[in-house]
């Protein structure tokens, strides 16, 4: 645990002493809960359609695969016409693309970004590295299987997958969402202890609360 995260007493500039406990003051420790869909089926179907047609990707490139995401914004591939756009903040995004290899250090940031996104949210693993480690299969510092740490809805294989492959992948994801099968956020909540145990197994300097929305 880092020193600045420990509980301590601080003296303010006006001489008043107060207690600071960063992990409790700044974060929430409440575990995520399973959130059911709308009670009426037609409403849930409408929402699922809207979710599928409005994929907001968190602009967070974790590895070299991020370079295949950028062409999607350009005139040549133009993903905007499929309802896909990039958001700079996890609060507004509903799709986290793990683009390529994920080092343990980045995994920590990816978990925090994922937990700040709102339910329902989707994870796409891009490239072979997220499936079995790919060319980093024997690396000491990258994870091998992404779905042990975050609930993955879809993998796009290749090293690297071309932007066309990504567009095809997003199309498949849309079908999953429309069919109501992309419930990764609820899976994460259901198997929360299992995911946390796996995450803590590889992240040795765990200096954040168990759940930080």
């Amino acid at each position, binding site marked *: 645990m880092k020193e600045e995260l420990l509980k301590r007493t601080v003296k303010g500039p006006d001489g008043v002493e107060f207690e600071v406990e960063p992990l409790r003051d700044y974060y929430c420790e409440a575990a995520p809960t399973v959130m059911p869909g709308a009670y009426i089926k037609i409403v849930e179907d409408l929402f699922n359609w809207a*979710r599928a*047609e409005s994929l907001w990707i968190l602009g967070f490139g974790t590895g070299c695969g991020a370079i295949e995401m950028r062409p999607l914004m350009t005139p040549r591939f133009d993903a905007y016409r499929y309802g896909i756009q990039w958001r700079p903040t996890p609060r507004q995004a509903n799709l986290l693309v793990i683009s390529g290899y994920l080092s343990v250090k980045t995994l920590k940031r990816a978990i925090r970004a994922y937990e700040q996104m709102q339910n329902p949210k989707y994870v796409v693993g891009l490239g072979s590295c997220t499936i079995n480690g790919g060319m980093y299969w024997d690396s000491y510092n990258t994870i091998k299987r992404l779905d042990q740490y975050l609930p993955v809805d879809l993998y796009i294989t290749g090293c690297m997958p071309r932007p066309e492959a990504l567009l095809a992948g997003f199309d498949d994801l849309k079908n999953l969402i429309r069919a109501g099968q992309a419930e990764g956020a609820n899976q994460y909540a259901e198997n929360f202890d299992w995911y946390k145990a796996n995450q803590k197994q590889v992240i040795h300097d765990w200096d954040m609360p168990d759940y930080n929305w």
Partner: protein
Amino acid sequence: MQFDWMKIPYALLTLFIVVNFGMILTALVAKIAARVGRRRGIRIWQNYADLFKNYGLRSSITHGAMFYLGPVFRLTGGIGLLLFVPTIYGSYVFSNLSFAGDLILALYFIFFGTLGMALGAAESGHPHAAIGVSRGLSQVTTAELPLALAVFSVALQYHTLSVTAIVAAQQGGIEHWTLFTNPFAVAAAMLAFLGSMMRPPFDVVSAPQEIPIGPPTEYHSSYLAMMQTNRAIFPIAKIVVYMNLFFGGAASWPVFCLKVFLIYMVSVFIGVVFPRFRVEQSIRWFLIWALPLGVLAIVLV
């Protein structure tokens, strides 16, 4: 005083039409801007999907009462601006809740949403929100100065504070428009218009590449959806005020659609051609170019 209760459902009808018009118009404008960049752009109904998705998110978190009230105030600013200004001149159904001094109220409502957003975004505690808010408020304040001067100039010119009376004075041909009878006021107001449309060169407030999206950084789900709704209403409502004050108002819906579209396109044309100003550059620009025009309009009227 007799209040005509039928005005309330009629005003809601105006609101409904304007929301849908605004959703489609902003998508169309995004498409036009995309074509300039040689892209196809978003689909024309994309805004509806985004809106439904955000209302349909299952979880949301709050940072306190003011965080919750921020989008509410913003939406109030947009709806209030629309409801207290006559949309269609000469129509009983679409004259909304306009009254004798509605011009002053409209000026308040233009600023109201920004102010509410500032309070809400500040409570989210995100540093990017604070930076965005300080930029937004300083830019909107300086853009508001020439607009206020232009509005006073128009009020002096027609000796009234009622938007309906100002539109009435402009009827009878294009040469009666304020555009030709008081060109300096219109020039000052149109420069101010650029500053509040959230388009380049004045969109550094929510620069996504630099301060992730500015004031709404922490906003999501229904909060964001309310702001998106406002995003559809507010530009239209503001253009309605401009149209009534400077461009002769509209006597029917087709004229309304055409005029609103053309006034909107002014900011779009300038936006796709010119790069983004930093905030101190835009403040200086408003003070040097727009403010003297406003002063001139007051002096000459």
